[in-house]
């Protein structure tokens, strides 16, 4: 095909293309810039501008009589968030659940990833990897909802508990349910980087450790876990960040005391129609994530993303 077909395609426009090709070959940065310019401009003028708009509108307020947004600078939204005990409690609850979910995911994921790397055969390993990632693509809303079916009073879990002669669980619509659901939804995000970190450990390290007299547990504690820390840190960015920004799970499986930052933002955009306050509260997870990313960077998370 190539050359003959290409020559046959000669057209009057060819001269212009040649000139353009010549310029882009001599000045590759010009070509790179021409290609990058469009998506970069789109992102700067829409997405980055939107983040700026978020910050700006956080300082606005809503006129209580007309419900119109007032474009004058004020710190009222932020002082309300800091001083109102309800909002403070919601912020701390969000951080607490995010932290609990992150720890649980790490505890579940580490032995699972270890199994994939060092116990499973190569075919089983590939199958497990695919089947671990696939749930991420199953609608997130559907996966949250599936737990509602499971945890229902007459759902599958209680049916099995009764079969085993155990009493009913009553954790539907509580923070316990949210803890389970978040762990369930974000677990693949933790497994993947931990798997990648464990896979990179050369066998020779473990042999060296054994030669130096370390038993299995000692090698695990002194060699394998420290080398897996960057992977766990990388996974924790996802589990932590995604929990901070969610409002779906609390509204579907949470109870009256399960409101997270996301729900307050959600309610203020929808029902209360106070976008400036929603914007101000949305900056809270943004700032928490900023601090969190700095800490995780020190643990080497970014090298293993």
């Amino acid at each position, binding site marked *: 095909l190539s050359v003959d077909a290409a020559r046959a395609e000669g057209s009057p426009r060819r001269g212009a293309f040649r000139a353009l090709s010549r310029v882009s070959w001599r000045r590759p940065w010009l070509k790179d810039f021409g290609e990058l310019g469009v998506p*970069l401009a789109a992102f700067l003028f829409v997405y980055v501008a939107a983040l700026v708009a978020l910050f700006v509108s956080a300082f606005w307020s809503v006129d209580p009589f007309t419900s119109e947004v007032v474009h004058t600078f004020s710190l009222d939204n932020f002082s309300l968030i800091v001083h109102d005990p309800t909002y403070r409690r919601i912020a701390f609850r969000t951080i607490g659940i995010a932290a609990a979910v992150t720890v649980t995911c790490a505890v579940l994921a580490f032995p699972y990833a270890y199994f994939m790397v060092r116990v499973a055969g190569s075919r089983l390993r590939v199958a497990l990897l695919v089947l671990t990632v696939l749930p991420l693509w199953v609608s997130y809303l559907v996966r949250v909802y599936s737990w509602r079916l499971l945890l229902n009073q007459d759902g599958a879990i209680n049916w099995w508990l009764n079969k085993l002669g155990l009493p009913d669980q009553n954790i539907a619509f509580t923070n316990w349910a949210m803890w389970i659901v978040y762990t369930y939804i974000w677990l693949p995000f933790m497994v993947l980087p931990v798997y990648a970190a464990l896979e990179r450990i050369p066998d020779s390290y473990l042999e060296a450790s054994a030669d130096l007299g370390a038993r299995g547990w000692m090698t695990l504690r002194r060699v394998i876990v420290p080398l897996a820390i960057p992977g766990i840190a990388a996974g924790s960015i996802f589990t932590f960040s995604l929990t901070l920004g969610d409002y779906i799970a609390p509204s579907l499986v949470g109870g009256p005391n399960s409101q997270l930052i996301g729900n307050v933002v959600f309610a203020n955009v929808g029902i209360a129609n106070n976008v400036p306050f929603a914007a101000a509260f949305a900056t809270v997870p943004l700032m928490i994530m900023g601090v969190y990313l700095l800490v995780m960077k020190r643990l080497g998370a970014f090298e293993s993303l």
Partner: protein
Amino acid sequence: VIETRASRIGLWIWAIAVFLFLWIPIVIMGLYAFNSSNVQSWPIAGFSTRWFSVAWHDPDVRSALGLSIRCGLAATAAALVLGSLAAFGLSRARFFGRNAISFIFVLPIALPGIITGMALNSFFLYWGIGLSIWTIVIGHATFCVIIVFNNMLARLRRTSGSFFEASADLGADGWQTFRYVTFPVVRTALIAGGLLAFALSFDEVVVTYFTAGAQNTLPLLIYGYIREGQRLPVVNAIALVVILVTVIPVFIAQRLTSDAGVSRR
């Protein structure tokens, strides 16, 4: 092998438990879609496919499905153009600020979804842009770009630059090189990126809520039904369809990218 026999057995049990934890809810969800009763209890009363037909003939569900497909296609098209341009631009780039630029494209998925949603909502409010299908598309495109970008960049990095040089040596101009060399190399990555972007857009709900205004996409419709506890059997049936619509493209994309493109050297 440093693991003792006991610890290997322990690891097997742990792995099976975690695997079941990941999959049982999805399987149960699939079973409920065929529940003949409209009471959501376990065990399932009987098997029936009637809720699929109820869902299919429902005008609300139909218009939501139509909107989701239109948004998915438009967002995918935008993501394909922007993501591949960005990948071409950055694949050879050595200039200062390269990482900063790719960081900007990653932001929409690195930040909590509610921030992306809220930010876009404030942006549209700021400029007085009414929420419509186009604001949904803009929202979806922002986080779909990175999917196409990553797929394309990975493929371009695996492709040796000498292919393009050889093409130029043989007398091809920029367009011909693109048509006969570059495009065939990136084609499967492009398709895979597009499929993944569509799958991501099709079931997105967190950002969509803030950019959707009065219209319902399919996930927004389901979300409303679940919150109000209405029409749950229909929700189950739709949920299974949504699972299939998103998982099948992902599976195809996986197959397309696992066959190595043109490798370096």
